[in-house]
């Protein structure tokens, strides 16, 4: 399985990778991108099985990335991992096809719950 982590913070990308391992997904291959624009290139090249994406990022934010993928007809399971989780954002995420929204700070159990359904 191949996971793409999109976050402008290297720290958060490391934390997400560590949490994936702690949640039992230690055999997955991980690609990283620092914003939505970079992610589009990585998605084209590496075809990830799932995308874990921050919401607030410079250049192209997570929602814009999801909308760009929708516009290109690219169907990849997509979830937000973000510091904001208001009902409005959750609704916006769902309306655009995101499968889940994980709010920081998160635990390995949260990853298991959300990713388990997607990856099973």
């Amino acid at each position: 399985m191949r996971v793409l982590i999109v976050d402008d913070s290297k720290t958060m990308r490391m934390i997400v990778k560590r949490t994936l391992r702690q949640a039992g997904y230690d055999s997955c291959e991980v690609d990283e991108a620092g914003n939505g624009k970079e992610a589009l290139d990585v998605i084209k090249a590496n075809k990830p099985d799932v995308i874990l994406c921050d919401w607030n990022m410079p250049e192209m934010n997570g929602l814009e990335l999801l909308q760009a993928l929708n516009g290109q007809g690219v169907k990849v399971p997509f979830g937000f991992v973000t510091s904001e989780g208001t009902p409005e954002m959750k609704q916006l995420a769902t309306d655009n096809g995101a499968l889940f929204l994980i709010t920081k700070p998160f635990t390995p159990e949260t990853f298991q719950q959300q990713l388990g359904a997607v990856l099973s």
Partner: protein
Amino acid sequence: MTEMSDHLAKWVTACVDSAKELASVALGIDQVAVNDIVAAMPSDQPIALIALAGSQSSVQLGISASHEGCQAISKKLLGMELDEPDLESGEVADAMGEAANILAGQVKSLMTSVDSTLNLGIPIFIRGQIDKSADSEVGLANIRIADIPVGVVVIISSEQ
């Protein structure tokens, strides 16, 4: 708590509650003590700041600690042991910014009843003294996350 407006006090309380959540879940530390809450800027030490702005509010939230404290917070956030080699300055800046980002996300969810239009900015990390403008109000909660002294700062601009 030093004399401050009810509005600012509400923001500071939300920050302290969010700092406890950050410490517990992201840093793995449940021991958080509030030493005091004052209407003052933090002393001359590094600070990660992030804007939280909406139609009713224009606020800067910050996490401030000594250089050693920033190292400790960053290492805990990254799941490292405190006796591991120190992180490079850019790594600390990124980690402290992410800590501020997590804190602000929690505060935003707690403060939606005050302002439902709040939006988060991108965090910045400053090594040096910051000053408030004449028209802004400051609240500082001096807390301890385990043995790490940390300042949690709220700067509210009165101009909209």
